[in-house]
C-alpha cells in the first residue's frame, strides 16, 4: 500500500481523534475507547458493505439497516434463543458458524429480491425502494411477534458464540476491566474487516471489479461490450448486502439482545455518514471514517451538556442526530469524496 499525503493525513486525523478521547475524558478512558473501537469496527464493516453498493457500483441504498437486520434475525433465530414477551426458550438450533453462514447468505438473497425490481431503474428509484423495503422489514419484524419477539425482542443467544471465546481474550478483558464477551465481538469484527477487505481488494482488482466500475461510469458502454450490466449490479448488491448481514450479526451479539428498535432507519444514516466521511469508493476509508465518527458521537454527550443544562437521554440523542445530519450535508456539499476517496473516481451523477 502506497502512503499518499491523503492517506497519511487520514491516519494522523484518526490517531488525533483517538487522542482526543483521552484528552476529553478524565477517567475510564480504556472502557470508553474499547466501546468506541467495538462500534467503529461493526459500523465500519457495514460501511464497507455500503461502499460496495455506492462507491463501487453507484447504487443508492437507503435500506442498509434492513440488510443488517435480516442477517442478524436469521442467524439469531437459527441458534438457541429466547423470544417474545414470555421469553419462549428454544434450546435446539444450529451451531453458530453454520447459522452465521446462512444468515449472511439470506441477507445477500434479500438484496437480490430487492434489487430485482429496482436495479433496472434509475438511481433515485432504488433509493425509494430500499428505504421502503427497510420500513416493510421493520413493520414485519414488529408484527410477527410469535417469531421475532416483536418489540420484546430476542434474548439469551450470546452463549452459542461466546463458547468459542479464546483464553487470551478473557485474560485481556480481566486485566483491563472490560466485558469479555464484548472484547470477543470487537475482536471478531476487526478480524472480519481484515478478511472482507482482503476479499474486496482481490475482487476489485479482478476483471469483475473493473466491469463493476465501468458500470458505474458508463453503463451503456458496458452493455455495448456485451456484459450483462444488470446482473453485475445485482451481484454487487448481493455482495454488499451480505457484508451488511455480517455486521448486523456482530451488532446483535454486541448488544446481546435484538429488538425492532435495533435496526431502524437512523442506523442506515449512521452508516452513510461513516461511508461519506471515510471516502466513497475507497476500500479502507470507511474504517478511519468509522473511528472518527464514533469519537464525534462519543463526545455528543458533552456537546449536549453545553446546550442544555442536565441534558437527558432524548436531548443527547437529538443533538447526536442533528450532528449526523449536518455531517452528511456538509461533507456532501464541500467534500463529497470524504477523507480517502478519489475525486476522479467519484462520478456522482450516475444514471
Amino acid at each position, binding site marked *: 500500500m502506497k502512503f499518499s499525503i491523503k492517506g497519511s493525513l487520514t491516519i494522523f486525523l484518526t490517531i488525533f481523534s483517538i487522542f482526543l478521547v483521552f484528552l476529553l475524558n478524565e477517567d475510564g478512558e480504556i472502557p470508553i475507547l474499547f466501546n468506541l473501537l467495538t462500534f467503529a469496527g461493526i459500523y465500519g464493516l457495514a460501511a464497507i458493505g455500503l461502499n460496495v453498493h455506492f462507491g463501487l457500483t*453507484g447504487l*443508492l441504498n*437507503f435500506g442498509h439497516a434492513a440488510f443488517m437486520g435480516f442477517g442478524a434475525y436469521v442467524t439469531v433465530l437459527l441458534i438457541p434463543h429466547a423470544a417474545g414477551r414470555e421469553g419462549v426458550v428454544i434450546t435446539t438450533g444450529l451451531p453458530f458458524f453454520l447459522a452465521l453462514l446462512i444468515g449472511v447468505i439470506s441477507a445477500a438473497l434479500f438484496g437480490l429480491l430487492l434489487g*430485482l*425490481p*429496482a436495479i*433496472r*431503474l*434509475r*438511481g*433515485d*428509484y432504488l*433509493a*425509494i*425502494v430500499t*428505504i*421502503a*423495503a427497510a*420500513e*416493510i422489514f421493520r*413493520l*414485519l419484524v*414488529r*408484527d410477527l411477534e410469535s417469531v421475532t419477539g416483536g418489540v420484546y425482542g430476542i434474548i439469551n443467544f450470546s452463549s452459542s458464540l461466546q463458547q468459542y471465546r479464546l483464553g487470551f481474550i478473557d485474560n485481556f478483558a480481566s486485566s483491563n476491566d472490560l466485558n469479555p464477551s464484548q472484547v470477543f465481538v470487537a475482536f471478531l469484527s476487526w478480524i472480519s474487516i481484515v478478511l472482507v477487505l482482503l476479499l474486496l481488494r482481490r475482487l476489485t482488482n479482478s476483471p469483475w471489479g473493473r466491469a463493476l466500475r465501468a458500470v458505474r461510469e458508463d453503463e451503456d458502454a458496458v452493455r455495448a461490450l456485451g456484459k450483462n450490466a444488470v446482473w453485475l449490479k445485482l451481484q454487487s448488491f448481493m455482495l454488499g448486502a451480505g457484508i451488511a448481514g455480517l455486521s448486523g450479526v456482530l451488532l446483535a451479539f454486541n448488544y446481546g439482545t435484538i429488538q425492532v428498535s435495533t435496526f431502524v432507519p*437512523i442506523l442506515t*444514516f449512521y452508516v*452513510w455518514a461513516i461511508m*461519506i466521511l471515510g471516502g466513497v469508493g475507497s476500500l479502507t476509508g470507511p474504517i478511519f471514517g468509522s473511528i472518527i465518527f464514533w469519537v464525534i458521537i462519543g463526545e455528543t454527550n458533552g456537546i449536549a451538556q453545553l446546550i*442544555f443544562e442536565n441534558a437527558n437521554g*432524548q*436531548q443527547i*440523542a*437529538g*443533538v447526536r*442526530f*442533528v450532528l*449526523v*445530519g*449536518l*455531517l*452528511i*450535508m*456538509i461533507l*456532501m*456539499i464541500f467534500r*463529497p469524496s470524504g477523507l480517502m476517496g478519489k475525486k476522479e473516481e467519484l*462520478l*456522482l*451523477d*450516475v444514471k
Partner: protein
Amino acid sequence: MIEQLGNGLLLGIIISVASVALSLLYGVTRIVNFAHGEIIALGAIATLFLSSPVDSRLLFLDRFSPLGNNFYISVIISVIFCGLLGGILEFFLFRPLRKAEVGNIAVLVVTIGLSLFLRHIYMLLNAKPQNFPLELQRRETYLFFDMTPRNFRVLILGIIVMVLIGLFLNYTRIGKAMRAVRDSNDLASVSGINSDNIILFTWISSSMLAGLAGVFQATINDVRYNMGFLILLLIFAGTVLGGIGTSFGAMVGGFIIGIVVNVSVGLPFMEGHTEAKNAVALAIMILILLFRPQGIFGEKERVS
C-alpha cells in the same frame, strides 16, 4: 369497511396534496426531496406554535400567542412560513449546488442529511406528540361516510386545493412556464423563461403545499416531530404509483395509497396486524415499479 373508506379518503387527500408538491418539485428540478416530510411537519409545528401554548425545551417559552390564538390565521402564517423555508433552501442551498453542477444523486444525499437535521431540531424543540387546540367534535354522516365536520372540511378544502393546482398549472402563465421547464429546461430557457425564477417559485409553492398537507395531517391525527418522516414513504408510494413528475398522476396515486392503507386493515390476512397497514401500500409501490416503472400516468421514458 365504509368507515375505513372515509378514513382512506381523508388520508388520501393529505397524501395527494403532499405528493403533488413532491412531484412538482421533482418534475421541475429533478430533485427527489427526502426533506419534504420535514417541511410537512413544519407546517403542523408552526401552526401549533402560533395557535396554542406550547411546551418547548429549546425556546423556553411557556406561552406564545401574538395572534390571539386564532387558528386560521396561524395556519395561513405557517403555510407562508413553509414557503419561505422552501425559498431559503433553494436560494442558499440548492441553487449554489446546481450552479456548481453537483449531480442529482449527491443532491439527494444532501436532502437526506437535511431531513435528519431538521427532524431532530424539531425533536429538540418538543418531542412529545401534541394536539391542535381544537374542541372535540361528534361524527356526523356525509353521504356514506361518518366523519367529524372538521375532517369533512379538510376533505373539501383538499379537493379545492387540488382543483386550484390543476387550473393553475394549465391556465396561468407561470404554471405553463413551470410545465415548460419540467419538459425541457433548455427549450424553456431559449423561449425566454428564466428557469431560476421558475425553480425558486416551484420550491416556494411546493413547500407551501407541503405545509398545508402537514396542517391537514395534524388536524386529523396529532403533531409530532417525526410526523413528516412517517408519512413520507406513503407520499413516495403515491408519487411513484401515479408517475413521478406528473401532477395529475400524483393526485390519483396519493388518493389510491391513502385508501389502500386504510382499506387493507379489513383484508382477511391483515386481521390483528393493523400496525402493518403501511407495509401493504409500500409493497404495492414496489410491485408497480416491477411492472410499470413509469407509474399509472407517467409517460414512457427510459428509466433504467
